[in-house]
């Protein structure tokens, strides 16, 4: 066995171990009761909607917030125009007549500055954010608020689905988000979430005041905030029934930019919070989730490099074959003798089956159809596309070059 094979089997073992660990944790807590949705003793809630050039989507975002089943006197919506250059401010102003909506405008300074500005305008018990391209289910806030009845809970993350997936790239993300719903749910059970996503994560006000407001966080303020909370051992739960629909990037170019930013942010924040890694004081987060997330970035890049090399060798062979004998008709003959049974094949198959189980559970958690076209798209494309942005992110993070939002 050469070095490449050892690394490959190592990466596969770690990936499989991770999936098995997540599934054990999920089934271990399967019968655990979830907080009941109740309109009694609800905390006051502020939802901040930071906007930068979101004229096309922010109206629907605000309407979805206005449709929330939550006592109106306890809900405060703060929309912040972060120096948009389009008609975002005009769209926001059309909502000014709603008494519980506050419209703010400021010079462009980035999402974290918009969140921090809005924080000055509220004294609500819980403060959350909703990206201006995301829409909430009517009961989402009721579900989230029910978790804050436990005084130990500092923050709650939602379940995020993809809105109206049309392009192949969006279909791929639809299945991926299904997987993420499961993963976030299980990470919460292990007390190991490391992102409080922009769409509809909520924080207890005094917690924000104690750990500090949002930072730039290498363009991933949601990840940095979560790591900061984890560092202080705050409890972050997840409510997969609190469904938020987000607009996923439609084209590969847009997705690539988003993912380079996410991965770059993870890698740079991993450096800033390196003391959390392999630290038993942080339980599964320090011993498993953070290290394996980091390994998976490098592992996937390595496997992709190996795949590219093997494909190159194969194509070269085919070219040589063509140059030597021209077009050769392959002889198709089924014989059970040739059925693939290699160790590598079986392990990859096991990995795919577990991934499918995880996506299926994620979809069930978000009340979506389990069997749909997005799954084969995900299985076919994701493995090939991901390493592209992972490789670029590793390079950018090593060079500390910074990333742009758009």
């Amino acid at each position: 066995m050469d070095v490449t094979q050892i690394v490959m089997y190592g990466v596969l073992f770690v990936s499989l171990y991770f999936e098995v660990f997540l599934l054990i944790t999920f089934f271990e807590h399967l019968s655990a009761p979830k907080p009941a949705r109740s309109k009694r003793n609800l905390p006051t809630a502020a939802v901040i909607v930071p906007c930068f050039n979101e004229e096309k989507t922010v109206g629907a975002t605000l309407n979805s917030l206005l449709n929330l089943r939550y006592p109106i006197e306890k809900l405060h919506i703060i929309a912040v125009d972060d120096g948009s250059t389009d008609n975002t401010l005009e769209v926001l102003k059309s909502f000014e007549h709603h008494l519980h909506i506050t419209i703010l405008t400021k010079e462009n300074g980035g999402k974290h500055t918009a969140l921090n500005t809005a924080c000055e305008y509220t004294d609500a018990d819980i403060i959350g954010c909703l990206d201006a391209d995301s829409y909430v289910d009517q009961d989402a806030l009721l579900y989230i608020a029910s978790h804050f009845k436990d005084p130990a809970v500092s923050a709650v993350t939602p379940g995020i689905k993809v809105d109206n997936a049309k392009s192949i790239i969006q279909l791929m993300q639809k299945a991926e988000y299904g997987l993420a719903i499961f993963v976030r749910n299980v990470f919460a059970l292990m007390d190991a979430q490391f992102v409080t996503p922009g769409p509809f994560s909520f924080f207890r006000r005094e917690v924000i005041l104690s750990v500090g407001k949002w930072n730039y966080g290498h363009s991933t303020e949601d990840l940095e905030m979560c790591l900061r909370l984890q560092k202080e051992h705050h409890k972050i739960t997840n409510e997969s029934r609190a469904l938020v629909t987000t607009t996923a990037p439609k084209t590969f170019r847009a997705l690539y930019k988003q993912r380079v930013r996410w991965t770059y942010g993870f890698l740079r924040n991993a450096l800033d919070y390196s003391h959390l890694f392999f630290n038993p004081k942080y339980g599964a987060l320090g011993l498993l989730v953070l290290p394996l997330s980091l390994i998976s970035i490098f592992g996937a890049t390595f496997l992709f490099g190996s795949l590219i090399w093997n494909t190159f060798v194969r194509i070269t062979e085919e070219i040589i074959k063509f140059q030597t004998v021209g077009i050769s008709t392959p002889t198709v003959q089924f014989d059970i003798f040739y059925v693939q049974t290699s160790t590598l094949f079986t392990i990859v198959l096991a990995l795919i089956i577990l991934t499918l189980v995880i996506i299926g559970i994620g979809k069930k958690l978000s009340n979506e159809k389990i069997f749909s076209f997005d799954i084969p798209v995900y299985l076919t494309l994701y493995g090939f596309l991901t390493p592209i942005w992972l490789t670029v992110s590793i390079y950018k993070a090593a060079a500390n070059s910074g990333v742009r939002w758009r």
Partner: protein
Amino acid sequence: MQGRPSQWIKYILAFVITAFIFATAIIANNFFNAKRIEQIRSIEEGISIDILSLDTQFELLQEQSCQSISENPILSRELDTLARKLSFAEAQLGADNEEVLRLKRHYSLLEIKDLLLMQKVSEKCGLEPVFLLYFYSNEKGACMDCKRQGYVLTELAKQYPSLRIYSFDYNLDLSAVETLISLKNIPEELPALVIHDKAYGGFKKIEEIKELIPELKALDEQVED
């Protein structure tokens, strides 16, 4: 805020399950490879019996059996199937695998036996079948053009099913192959071909081989007519 407890039992359980999946994959692979080896061995035994039977039949009946023996497509096809299965097993288990090497030696012996029998039949029955002996090497850097030569011969075999191609690993540790190399004066430059008892070193294109085997050209012309 307090640190959180680690659940070591869960870490160990996940490790055990993952190790079990890995072990199952390894055991299953070994099991299926053993079955493949068994199948190849059984094919080899079958061919061995067939060759011996034909040889004996020929000895007994002499010229009377010319018709039944001379064009023996079944045996030729079996040898071809065996070669492909052996090649697959080689890719699965590795070219250095002892079992693969043993089967390969047996296969080479069967090829030589078949070749000798066919030569004998041709001589006695006045036939002129075309034999092509191909010597290759799997050793790294020993034969840069063997892959290309393999493509050419596979294509030729497809075009001319009656052409009998016998492939031998030049470095196979088998005295019969070594004797064949020495008898046919196989050059060290690989790939090497033996056509009409003459050895040629180096890569040969389809057209070059057709030039060396005029019988193939004749077959082409027959098809065109």
